[in-house]
């Protein structure tokens, strides 16, 4: 009996600081598909990405998430990663004293993969992402520019060989060239390795380079509208208010006290 290959989110509800942020999310991402989740500030985009990875500070209050049949919500964050999930953080954390190679070597060891193969995989990935190999020996994310940090995230995604990637605002802090490079690498992974992608973004510009199969608009903790590329054009032209009606103006109530919601860029649709 073969397992159905899909990252399936069903009726997912979650709280942060006693405030319900996710109010029933339904989404399915299959291998090789790219899904974009868009939404105004405070709509729950980042919460969704953190809840999927199991970041402390969020409480799941209902629903389920399965990855190729595995119940993700019953796993610790590192087990979710080993199951094939990758979270590309909006703000990659600086970790002084820990090198990328040490991290990925331990990840390989924990997953039963060959730890000695990490160095070569790193060099290959660095080459395709245009990362200076000298950066590989630096402590994780320390003194890296915003663009370098995101390339570094894409690099880890490649080396770890995840099956599904959640990209949380991967376009923030990226210049045009870096965005193109990172997007190209992700496209390559979807086309060649069947990576399933859930790209969470505030801006439509990511969609121009990432070419999602489906676009979902998140508002007040639920997916309100789903569509194809025409939805991106509508968002570009009318903003969230145009697509969602008056719902977009009621977001501010959920913005208070979110543990990881800080640091969004300026809202061009406001």
């Amino acid at each position, binding site marked *: 009996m073969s397992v159905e290959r899909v990252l399936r989110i069903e009726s997912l509800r979650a709280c942060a600081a006693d405030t319900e942020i996710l109010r029933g999310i339904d989404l399915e991402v299959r291998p090789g598909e790219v899904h974009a989740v868009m939404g105004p500030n405070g709509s729950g985009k980042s919460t969704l990405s953190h809840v999927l*990875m199991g*970041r*402390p500070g969020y409480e799941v209050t209902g629903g389920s998430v399965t990855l190729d049949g595995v119940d993700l919500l019953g796993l*610790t*964050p*590192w087990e*979710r*990663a*080993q199951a094939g999930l*990758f*979270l590309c*953080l909006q703000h*990659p*954390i600086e*970790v*002084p*004293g*820990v090198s990328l190679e*040490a*991290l*990925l070597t*331990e*990840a390989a060891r*924990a*997953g039963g993969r060959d730890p000695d193969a990490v160095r070569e995989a790193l060099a290959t990935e660095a080459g395709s992402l245009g990362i200076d190999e000298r950066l590989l020996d630096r*402590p*994780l994310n320390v003194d890296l520019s915003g663009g370098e940090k995101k390339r570094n995230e894409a690099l*880890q995604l490649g080396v*770890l060989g995840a099956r599904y990637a959640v990209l949380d605002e991967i376009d923030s802090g990226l210049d045009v060239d870096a965005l193109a490079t990172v997007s190209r690498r992700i496209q390559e992974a979807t086309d060649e390795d069947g990576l399933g992608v859930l790209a969470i973004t505030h801006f439509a510009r990511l969609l121009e380079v990432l070419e999602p199969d489906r676009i979902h608009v998140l508002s007040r903790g639920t997916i309100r509208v789903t569509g194809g590329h025409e939805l991106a054009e509508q968002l570009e032209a009318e903003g969230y208010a145009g697509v969602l009606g008056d719902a977009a103006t009621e977001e501010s109530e959920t913005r208070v006290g979110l543990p990881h919601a800080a640091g969004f860029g300026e809202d061009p649709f406001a």
Partner: protein
Amino acid sequence: MAGEMRPCQIHQPSPARGRVLKRFTPDVSAALPGPDWMCTRRAAAVAGLGDVAHPDVGEEVWRYSRIDELDLERYLPSSQRPVANTGVDGFIADGAAATVVLCDGWIQSVYISEAATEADVLIGTVADLVSGPALLGAVLEAPVDLFGHLNRAFCPEPLAVVVPDGVRLDGPVVVVSHVATEGVAAFPRLVVHCGVDAEVAVVEVQTSDDVGALVAPVLEATVGRAGRLCHAVLQELGQRVWQMAHQEVHVGQDASGELFHAGLGGDYARTRTDSRLLGRGAECRITAAYFGDGAQALDYRTFLDHAAPDTVSELLFKGAVDDASRSVYTGLIRVRPEAVRTRANQTNRNIKLSPDAWAESVPNLEIETDDVMCSHASTISPVDADQRFYLESRGVPTIVAERLLLEGFFSEVVAAAPVPSVGDRLQRGLIEKLNRHSTVGAKGAV
């Protein structure tokens, strides 16, 4: 600070101050070897013991310590050369300019390389040196506390390392200071003089057998003009040893004193460091790592005295406490009125690995002049949750993530080791402790 105690030579009986020590007697002291001048000094120190105040947790310098648990009468000063077969760790001694083994404070063996001999470096018992009387106690007129007094009264064989002016030794001088005897009170003493424009690295490896013992080592060091002294301690004492160490370092004009400490062992292990920057442009750097587990207590007190213009000090103490262990760091930077343009930084960072562990951090500044740049920082926190989550999100199990973070936390101290093998050995000791932490953590999680 409680640094101002009267010297033992002054006899002003005030029985209320001290307690009578039954086992630290004139007879034991008188049985120790040495020339007349040395025996006379010991006798004076013993005679003065009754006037010495016993440490009290009420004093700032003993606050947070476990001094009230110490029963001195459980220990007997070493009165004869122990019969022990103390080895020298080749890992450290490789390429050494000299290797000395002390056992319970007695000099057991001395090896001096040809290069060091040719350079007229003097290494051996102070008793044999013509300059001995001047050298011993040169930087330490009065002991800072009871244990300094006891060292003065009961140190059997002070060890001298004298590097003549202009001599630069390539390899380190390795001093293995071992404690071997059950119930002993050991008083090793190391006197280091780094001459004008000389350069030397001294590595002290402090070890013990699995004995219940008290060891109170004293280091006296001077660095002459433009000299460069590195002194590193690898403290790897056994689990039942109490240590009360004192280091006094005087740094001359344009000279530098670099002190390094790796605190891993002991039941209660305390090091007090007094560093005085006495000449214009003198520098002192103190870098330390400590890791307590079980019921250990690791206790560090630093006094950095800027007494000349354009002096620089840089202190970095990084520690971790696991299980029910405790650590103390208190530091005072004093900038005297004449020490204009002083630059001084004092940083203490602690990671608490267990809810029962406890760390204390008290950095202080006492600045008596303007035109200085001083800073101090101290933190006590658990492992950073965001950093741990980040590593976990890449597929690294929680305990491995913590180990990586702790290795990372200590890496700047390891990198600062003055001799590479000292850094390696510290790293190895830390990893052993981290593995123990991981094992216990894994058991706890089941």
